[in-house]
């Protein structure tokens, strides 16, 4: 194989669940095409390249770096900076890297509360001395260290400049392969400013096959409380579904199995705030008379913060309490 002309690709996980790495494997047979067209030069999940390899690469050596997971500590920050330096194109891959994702729900609590739930105030824990992990511990044979943590779950773009965003939790494989092909074929410029890829500016509703009957919502229900009528828009049936406020790209996968969208592809259109976009979209679904009661209706929604911002808690002003 001609290593000189082949593109160099890297995949890295920071504060991640590994699902994004798996989603790249999901391109299936295209994986063989990908490795024929590009050399993987770093991918801890799947290949034995170490940090010293990455550090030894010249700046800009990696053509395409897919960075998944959020940034929760200095180590992840260091890797974000290193990979930015070594990569021509840096992609925030998946909801966690773009906007914190589900782990950013932790921004609703303080690190002290997180610690307490894990180590002291936890039913299975045997910890009479109230031991808490420390960053430095002296053992009989020497000092042991573990890293420090940031009080917040951060986005990749809070740390370094990001060229592209591929949304989804995780991004869907067909979209990922399209984007990979666009890159390898030279259809996308190396540098961009947080340009979205692997999605459209439409909404999940535009991709959803469930029928809108233009029935006004008269109240909200939780999905375990009732069986939805097949074929009919879930939101119109009173199930909170974020499809209208979520950018399309997934193919409305959740609604295909009768489950409402939770917004993993992020806010649709120009919206930055998915919750506000949803409340806005809701307006048009309430008739004038109900609109007057909108506040009351919205109060029926349990846990609005954890529902409307399920995947975007690290965005802008939403960074929980400090």
């Amino acid at each position, binding site marked *: 194989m001609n290593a000189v002309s082949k593109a160099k690709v890297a995949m890295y996980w920071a504060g991640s669940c590994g*699902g994004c790495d798996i989603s790249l494997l999901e391109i299936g047979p295209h994986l*063989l095409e990908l490795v024929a067209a590009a050399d993987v030069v770093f991918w801890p999940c799947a290949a034995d390249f170490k940090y010293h390899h990455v550090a030894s690469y010249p700046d800009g050596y990696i053509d395409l770096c897919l960075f998944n997971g959020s940034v929760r500590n200095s180590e992840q920050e260091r890797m974000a900076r290193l990979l930015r330096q070594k990569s021509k194109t840096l992609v925030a891959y998946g909801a966690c890297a773009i906007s914190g994702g589900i782990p950013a729900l*932790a921004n609703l609590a303080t690190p002290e509360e997180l610690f307490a739930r894990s180590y002291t105030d936890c039913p299975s824990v045997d910890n009479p001395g109230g031991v808490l992990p420390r960053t430095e511990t002296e053992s009989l044979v020497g000092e042991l260290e573990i890293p420090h943590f*940031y009080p917040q779950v951060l986005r990749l773009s809070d740390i370094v400049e990001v060229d592209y965003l591929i949304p989804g*939790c995780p991004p869907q494989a067909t979209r990922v392969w399209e984007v990979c092909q666009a890159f390898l074929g030279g259809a996308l410029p190396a540098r961009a400013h947080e340009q979205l890829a692997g999605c459209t500016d439409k909404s999940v509703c535009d991709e959803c096959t469930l029928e809108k009957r233009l029935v006004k919502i008269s109240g909200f229900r939780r999905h375990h409380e009732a069986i939805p009528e097949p074929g009919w828009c879930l939101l119109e049936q009173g199930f909170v579904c974020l499809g209208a406020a979520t950018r399309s790209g997934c193919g409305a996968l959740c609604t295909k199995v009768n489950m409402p969208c939770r917004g993993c592809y992020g806010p649709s259109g120009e919206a930055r705030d998915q919750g506000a976009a949803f409340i806005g979209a809701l307006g048009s679904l309430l008739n004038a008379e109900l609109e007057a009661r909108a506040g009351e209706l919205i109060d029926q929604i349990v846990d609005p913060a954890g529902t409307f911002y399920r995947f975007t808690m690290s965005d802008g002003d939403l960074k929980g309490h400090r």
Partner: protein
Amino acid sequence: MSTTTSSGTRRISIDPVTRLEGHGKIDIFLDADGEVADCFFQVPELRGFERFCEGRPVEELPRITPRICGVCPEAHLMASAKACDEVYGIELPPTARMLRELQYCLFYVTDHATHFYALGGPDFVMGPESDPATRNLIGVIGKVGLEIAGKVIRCRQWGHEAAAIFGGRPVNPVNAIPGGMSKPLSAEERNRLDEIACYMVEFAEFTLELFRSVVLGNQQYVDLILNGPYRHATYSMGLVDAKNRSNYYDGEVRVVDPDGRELVKYPPRDYLQHVAERVEPWTYLKFPYLKAVGWKGLVDGKESGVYRATPQSRLNVADAMSTPKAQAAYEQYFETLTGDRSGKRPVHHTLAIHWARVVEMINAAERALELVRDPEITNQEKYRALPTRTPSEGVGCVEAPRGTLTHHYITDENGIVRRANLIVGTTNNHAAISMSIKQAAQGLIHRGVEVSEGLLNKIEMAFRAYDPCYGCATHSLPGQMPMTVRVRAADGTVLAEGRRAARGSDNG
């Protein structure tokens, strides 16, 4: 990778440790004679799932907790949905239960295949000390050829097609809910799943053949498995059905001692009576142990409450397998490793976990085929039940591929989570993994022995056998840091270490 430090000592980095899920760190300390004095395996992450599950509606947890681990989201999906069933006191309709187990078994085959071919397998197919640049799935494909590669890719692809048939999304499916499944199975979908399950059986058998020829057919590997520094006689834990056969989706937790005698068998909801977790200041990951035996530190044997919950442990606790081909594979496994095909004498060879994993692949695939052919599987009504009772508390337990997984929720009367506790697969094995790494380091690093990349990879192989997932294990812990191996002299000077200076010089 070897460099010389300013003080003239040798420094070797294997950072990050690779081909596993998530991050961790190892410190190896050498005494003055160049022997391993001690070894610490540290896990430095917290994501705080327990805390941020609080305040969420309980029916959302099957949609939230799968993000603990995107490699085994189905395990969290199922454990979470089961805990929700119990929170609402719902008796699952028969079809709902079968659908969940079917989905879970197909996931099991796929997940085990991932580990066998992409994570653990390359060490055997390519060789433990082979070129690290090709010691991976791509190298394996190059070596075994495109035909076999096509089989592996198809297994994964069809496995994820199955996940999407059930749960919409191939990764992080969303369909298990309190009371059952979000949709019934159509006849057309059933037919496709039948095809997929047939293929899975064939593929699992093929994998066993491959294991036999590549690993068992190589005397060096057999030696490494049987006589290498990879053995711990510990307690074993796993779920079993009413006949003490392995079940991945449901059953009671059975624990056997290092000699194979039953210590206890309990319904998952009693887990707090049997398992407790130690906290150590030098790691963010807790150490579960058996309360009846007690915590004696990181040691094996009958007096120590350390247990393992791996594919091997599940074979150790099972009296038999529930399906014929798996039973034959089970007997052959025990016959070879203990000389007793009945399986009464447990296996403790860490690297043989790879073999046990393949036996389970066959079992899960056969079980899936049984379920998909049950005429009730396409019942259009019994796929879910609606809650009628006031929600309160529930425990849900499945065998995750990496160990017994427990979700425990307490809610208020509106089903809003007040407390959540999770003991995940890999965490069960935390003590044993730490011990295995130390054992491998002690067995391999000696004065005068060159600490080569291949040697350090053999230390990595000690944990890779467990298929650990530190995404899962660290669901509750802060931040994340890739695994580092650091070799130190008795005086604490670093002889070999990772490049990353996670020393508190952070700017955060």
